[in-house]
């Protein structure tokens, strides 16, 4: 590649691939295009090969597996798995454990996403309006949970929430209330996981929101203030409408992330007590890698994927319409 011959005067007009108008010097441009074609594909090859082998192939394979009885013995001999049609999918919707996992995942998303977005927005506004000293310090502090290992975070939270010698239990003892056995109670286990997820993901939302807030021209705010808008009016009439693209983006990525929730329940509760924190991803992992019902687990993966796609499309529609 490094021996490419000189390619004179490629005019700046050639921008769109393949759509170049053939003006004077077109032949030379074509030769240059040929060179760039080759180079372009060579530069793309490593990514495309890795993508093909480790992403595209598995995605297709999951779909195929979801129509088979793929089990433990097929890990060594994948091709011997038998085609079973839609059996796995039919079974799924009669599987009470899976339906519970669907409900739990919905619970996690419906409560967790608005909390994360709302608090992230509040922190962003707080840090963007008036915190100039130690600004970095505050941002690093709020973002720190995002960059830490989920395993360590989960371990720490387990001890914070411990009913006998945990931090909250201790605070409760001093203030005169008895803290529940957060992770051991069917009622409190899920809210505890949600609280941890909000704590952990707040920083991402905050950073995105700050970037969005800084894109709002100062003149707009000043005009609003001159017209006598108070803080609440400014938030509702100026900040939120102008922040809509950022809000949309953060809502969509947070929702997708929360629909896939796996690590929090895996490390904190293993899905218990009595499946109160079993999510779809965790159910899939258990079916696939603990019981090796890989065909069945693949069907779960696709059901979850379809749900994610549908919700994402819905969110994009709804929030776009609002701007009109």
């Amino acid at each position, binding site marked *: 590649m490094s021996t490419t011959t000189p390619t004179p005067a490629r005019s700046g007009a050639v921008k769109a691939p393949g759509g170049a108008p053939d003006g004077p010097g077109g032949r030379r441009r074509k030769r240059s295009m040929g060179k760039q074609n080759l180079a372009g594909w060579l530069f793309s090859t490593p990514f495309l090969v890795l993508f093909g082998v480790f992403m595209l192939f598995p995605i297709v394979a999951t779909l195929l597996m979801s129509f088979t009885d793929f089990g433990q013995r097929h890990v060594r001999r994948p091709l011997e798995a038998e085609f079973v049609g839609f059996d796995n999918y039919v079974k799924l919707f009669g599987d009470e454990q899976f339906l519970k996992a669907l409900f739990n995942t919905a619970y996690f998303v419906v409560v967790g996403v608005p909390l994360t977005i709302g608090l992230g927005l509040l922190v962003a506004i707080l840090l963007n309006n008036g915190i100039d000293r130690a600004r970095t310090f505050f941002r690093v502090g709020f973002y720190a949970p995002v960059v830490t290992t989920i395993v360590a975070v989960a371990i*720490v939270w387990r001890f914070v929430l411990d009913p006998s010698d945990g931090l909250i239990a201790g605070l409760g003892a001093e203030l005169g209330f008895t803290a529940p056995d957060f992770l051991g109670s069917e009622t409190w286990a899920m809210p505890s996981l949600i609280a941890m997820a909000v704590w952990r993901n707040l920083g991402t939302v905050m950073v995105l929101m700050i970037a969005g807030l800084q894109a709002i021209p100062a003149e707009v705010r000043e005009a609003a203030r001159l017209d006598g808008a108070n803080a609440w009016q400014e938030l509702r009439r100026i900040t939120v409408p102008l922040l809509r693209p950022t809000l949309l983006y953060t809502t969509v990525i947070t929702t997708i992330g929360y629909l896939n929730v796996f690590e929090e329940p895996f490390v904190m509760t293993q899905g218990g007590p009595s499946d109160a924190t079993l999510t779809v991803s965790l159910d899939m992992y258990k079916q696939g890698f603990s019981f090796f019902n890989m065909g069945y687990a693949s069907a779960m993966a696709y059901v979850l994927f379809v749900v994610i796609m549908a919700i994402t499309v819905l969110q994009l529609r709804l929030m776009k319409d609002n701007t009109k």
Partner: protein
Amino acid sequence: MSAAPAAQAAAPARRRQRRMSKPALYVVASLGLLVMATPFLWMALSAFKTKKDLTASPPVWLPSEWTLQNFRDLLDQLDMPQYFLNSVIVAVLVTVCNLLFCSMLGYALAKLNFTGRSKVFGIVLAALMVPANLMVLPLFVLINQLNLLDTYAGLVLPFAAAAFGVFLMRQFMQAIPDELLEAARMDGAGEWYIFWRIVIPLVKPALATLTIFTFLGSWNNFIWPLIATNDPEKYTLPVALATFANDPNRTVGGANGMLMAGSLLVVLPVLVVFAVLQRHFTQGIATAGLK
């Protein structure tokens, strides 16, 4: 739980007619920060507590007696240096691969006109959105078939070229003026030379951002190393820690201190690196997230 006080603290900001005064703003932000930092503080302090302090009820904040026993026990019972080494090797390999492959494709997408470019970019965008759940089952079968379970290759290859990195590099490389590359082409430079000698030095800040994100992503990665390793010799730090935490046979009480010590050892390097390089984080998120 931790989120609720922050919400209550921030609520008055809405109701006030006048803007909040500076000191009040700082008080609210500091309270929020304290809530965010509490689990970390709790972890750091507990790592140095004795068994007696750890099981005290009600719990004590400060260790009545500072001890390193938890760290000694941890190193005694778990092969922490080996796990640390595994984590470092995997993270370095993943990062090097991503830096090279993502900037190569990023360059092609930003600066080379080739037929099918928009299709390749479409693939990158689609790959950004694919959840891991959709791949992990056959990926395990594939890696097993390739005899790569319990190998570094098995841990690295599925993450060797992330779509996020391609997207990030493309965004940055688009800002390079075409004239510069044209001039080099007129002087007879080949595309590889241009990429390596002109483009790469110009996007060093983006490479720094990508390095941090990729390294941390790999360092914190949990699900795949958990699936792709059976041999404790090849465990990464998070897998080793989680396995230990979920082991029903570990001795109660004293093990809690070890877990806190272990968590501290895993988290501390990350927090230090992050605090030093935080500028690159926020830039990276803002660029890759919103453009």
